[in-house]
């Protein structure tokens, strides 16, 4: 009995394939529209997933409170002495000065994120050491030593050497020696990151002595972040106080990705239905009616005819998924999601360049399938019940 059923389904699958082939122009156009919908959805999802992964990792290494100086809406350096103003505030565990900036390498046409900081000063749990694949973080005295991310290493193309140079703003060369390398596991964050001592960063960007771009404030009790931030604001009115929860919110606002994804899913579902409506609204064509009537007289049951439709839809949507997902992956990885550039502009507020390392959870794939394939299957198989209304005797002469 099982053998019979398998054989029968194989036969029906065979028939479905041949009937798709017979209507190949129509099948192909449905397939392409469907694949395009999945392509958009999957690209969007891969990009937003990559961005949110990045955001998560960035946040993990973000101090609880960051102090910056703003002037005319732009960030400025400020004297380290601001730190003294914080002495009296209760609940601050540690204040670590930092220089954070972006270096454009004109020789290699690449952007590096430069962080100058005495990482040994960071509280235990927040240190970057765990992100290292090899070597060690440069200590306070180790001038000229850097830890670099994976893609920087690749871009520098050093051969066997471990030294390279960057230009200061006055175009004089500043030599560096690589003292360590970040692990690929933290690529999302460390891919383009370069960590050096505070003094080296100052030297590289020609920032005057005693000046920094940020002060990182670590607190003893995370529940007090807001209270402490308020106290800091009171003590240093000219300084912008960013808390980790605030930055988190900024990221979320910039992508608005959850809701964005939701609405795109709905749109896609709608599109899938439009494809069908266009495909099915016409009802059964005379040829289809004739074919159904013939098959019925020849002993096909209504369920067999539905199975043909079902297999046709499975084949079309399966192919569309493979096509759409593959195209999306290529789009995101090899073309940097170029179709979404305008949508993603907001990202550049936070980081100058976008290195997308797409990631796609199984759950997301299921979600996309749920919003496209299932409606498509439902909407193609359900109207196929109409075939039940075609009387077999209409195949007889009369």
């Amino acid at each position, binding site marked *: 009995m099982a*053998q*019979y*059923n*398998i*054989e*029968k389904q194989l*036969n*029906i699958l*065979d*028939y479905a394939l*041949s009937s798709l082939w*017979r209507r190949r122009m129509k099948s192909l156009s449905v397939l392409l529209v469907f694949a395009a919908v999945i392509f958009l959805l999957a690209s969007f999802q891969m990009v937003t997933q990559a961005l949110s992964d990045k955001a998560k990792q960035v946040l993990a290494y973000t101090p609880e409170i960051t102090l910056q100086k703003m002037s005319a809406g732009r960030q400025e350096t400020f004297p380290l002495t601001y730190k003294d103003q914080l002495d009296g505030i209760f609940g601050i565990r540690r204040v670590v000065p930092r220089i954070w900036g972006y270096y454009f390498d004109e020789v290699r046409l690449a952007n590096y994120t430069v962080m100058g900081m005495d990482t040994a000063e960071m509280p235990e749990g927040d240190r970057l050491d765990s992100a290292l694949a090899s070597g060690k973080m440069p200590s306070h005295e180790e001038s000229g030593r850097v830890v670099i991310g994976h893609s920087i290493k690749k871009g520098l193309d050093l051969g066997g050497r471990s030294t390279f140079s960057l230009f200061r703003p006055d175009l004089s060369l500043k030599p560096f020696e690589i003292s360590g390398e970040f692990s690929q596991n933290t690529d999302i964050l460390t891919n383009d990151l370069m960590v050096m001592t505070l003094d080296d960063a100052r030297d590289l960007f020609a920032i005057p002595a005693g000046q920094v771009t940020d002060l990182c404030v670590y607190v003893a009790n995370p529940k007090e972040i807001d209270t402490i931030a308020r106290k800091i604001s009171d003590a240093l009115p000219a300084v912008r106080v960013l808390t980790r929860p605030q930055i988190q919110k900024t990221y979320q606002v910039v992508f608005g990705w959850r809701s964005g994804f939701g609405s795109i899913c709905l749109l896609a579902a709608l599109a899938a239905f439009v494809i069908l409506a266009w495909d099915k609204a016409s009802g059964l064509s005379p040829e289809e009616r*004739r*074919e159904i009537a*013939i*098959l*019925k*007289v*020849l*002993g*096909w*049951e209504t369920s*067999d005819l539905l199975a043909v439709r079902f297999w046709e839809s499975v084949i079309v949507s399966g192919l569309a998924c493979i096509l759409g997902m593959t195209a999306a992956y290529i789009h995101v990885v090899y073309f940097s999601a170029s179709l979404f550039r305008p949508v993603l502009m907001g990202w550049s507020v936070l980081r100058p360049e976008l290195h997308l390392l797409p990631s796609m959870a199984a759950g997301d794939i299921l979600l996309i399938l749920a919003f496209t394939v299932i409606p498509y299957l439902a909407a193609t198989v359900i109207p196929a019940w109409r075939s039940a209304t075609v*009387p*077999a*005797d209409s*195949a*007889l*002469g*009369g």
Partner: protein
Amino acid sequence: MLIELSEVSKIYNQGHPNEVRALTDIDLRVEQGSMVCLKGPSGSGKSTLLAIIGCIFPPTSGRAAIAEKQMTRLPDRFLTLHRRETIGFIFQRFNILPELTVLDNITLPLLPLGVSPKERKLRAHALLERFGITHRAQFPAGQISGGELQRVAIARALINNQPILLADEPTAHLDTVLSREFMVIMQQLKEAGKTIVIASHDPLVFEHPAIDRIVTIKDGRIHVP
């Protein structure tokens, strides 16, 4: 008795304004190995009677036993299952799917039976050979001649080795030569033991010597002259 109808009536759309009484009190018995012709003017109910014999729908009232099975009040699904084991149909214009190959057309009834591709090919080739159209097996059915098409239609009606053959106006669109050839094949099948019922008002059919009995139908009743 392979076909046994008693007091069979068929009313289309019963209870609706467009109700049509197509058959009234039909009594018909056809024994195995005989060939019967249903004759009558257009609209007399020949196709309806064939549909009941062919287990396409049950009669509205009366009793119909086809190959020892009572059709009356059998659910649709069982009619279908019984039909594909028992009845081979040959249609007016042959009802071939023109884009499918000859081979695929002939084996259509075997797909829902779960017959493997290998077995299907085997059975189809035996029939193709018998009717001398083996060289057309892979041709799209829309591209072969009328005579070949007719043999494809007959082959399809025989593919599951059904004991009963029903043909509805099979010669309506054929020239004299092909009509004669059709009856020659029917005669051979009859001699091979098939039970055959043909609805036709073509003299080439009902005057053929192989026809055992002519049943004349008028206004849905069997007409006894």
